[in-house]
């Protein structure tokens, strides 16, 4: 149990997916201008990443490894993730329309979110067991949400600030992200 806790802390803070591993930066900058969109994206990522983590782990362990076709990992993972996202979208639309309305437009974007694919690959490269993969997928997703929401909060303030013209928008956004990354840097060596 303790091991899982340590793994979770390391995935959320120390190896934060956005600020320490640089995965999923396009939605990080793209959806962080408003708090609402940031929350929507964070929820969608948590939801899909956990499912994707489980399914790709099963695909790799029970399909690719026994058949010795690990070289098809990239291809099969992206297909699994793309179809999973499509499936989740259709399922939510039919059964839980309220959640679909909330996550709606963010779901298709997740297919090309490298955080999802990245975490699935990390799980395999680190040779995690099923439970470890589950914990790490969930914790990485929580770390993603945490960083995204923090960043959106700061960015909403920056919009009303007087920023020099060439620095506006993405440029100041990146510098701000750098500052948050320094804060997260303090967690390094904790685990």
């Amino acid at each position, binding site marked *: 149990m303790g091991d899982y806790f340590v793994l979770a802390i390391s995935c959320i803070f120390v190896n934060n997916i956005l*600020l320490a591993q640089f995965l999923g930066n*396009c939605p990080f900058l793209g959806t962080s201008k408003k708090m609402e969109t940031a929350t929507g994206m964070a929820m969608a990522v948590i939801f899909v990443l956990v499912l994707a983590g489980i399914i790709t782990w099963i695909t790799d362990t029970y399909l690719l490894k026994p058949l010795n076709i690990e070289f*098809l990992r990239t291809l099969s993972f*992206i297909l699994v993730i793309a179809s999973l996202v499509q499936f989740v979208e259709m399922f939510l639309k039919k059964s839980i329309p309220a959640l679909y309305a909330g996550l709606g437009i963010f779901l298709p974007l997740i297919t090309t979110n490298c955080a999802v694919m*990245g975490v699935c690959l990390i799980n395999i*490269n680190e040779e995690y067991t099923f439970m470890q993969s589950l914990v790490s997928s969930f914790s990485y997703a929580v770390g993603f949400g945490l960083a995204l929401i923090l960043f959106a909060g700061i960015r909403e303030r920056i919009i009303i600030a007087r920023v020099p013209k060439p*620095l506006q928008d993405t*440029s100041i956004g*990146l*510098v701000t992200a750098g500052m948050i990354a320094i804060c997260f840097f303090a967690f390094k060596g904790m685990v």
Partner: protein
Amino acid sequence: MAQSMVKEFTKGLWAELPPFRLVLGLCPVLAVTKSVENGIGMGVATTFVLVCSNLLVSLLRNIIPVKVRIACFIVIIATFVTVVELVMQAYTYPLFLKLGIFIPLIVVNCIVLGRAEAFAFKNSPTLSIADGLGMGIGFTLSLGALGAIRECLGNGTILGNTVFGPGFQPFTFMVEAPGAFVCLGLMLCLMNLIGKK
């Protein structure tokens, strides 16, 4: 024809320079630019995938049904990424280890999919190659430049050669994660300054 090819080629080098103007595909830009070598290696790998997938998408553009085009693009891109992965593992193993999961992640690089969707699906194969090559070289140069700044300030070297005298204190911040964000942000600011003139 030749003129439009030149136009498609050069737009990737400045007017639509991928990481800066389009703000796409930032993850590898931030992650692998600790040194020039890594940056250029990643850039070349991405260029190869970009050119090949653009060519194939463009050749198949009349066969691929519009409704399932994204899925088809992804399969095409994933195939070329697998090719790059295996080639790099065979011939440039140290670089392969350094770039790690960012090689398979070329698959989800928004630039590659973005060019397939926005350009190659609507244009002829020759124009698509020019577009892919231009974007790829623009991407490689950006990665190389960012890598050079970070390696130079953070490590005091460029491509492994010492730049400064023995009294130089490495500015380690630059090669760590936060430095990547700040450095890219300031480069973007600089590009805006030059572009506004």
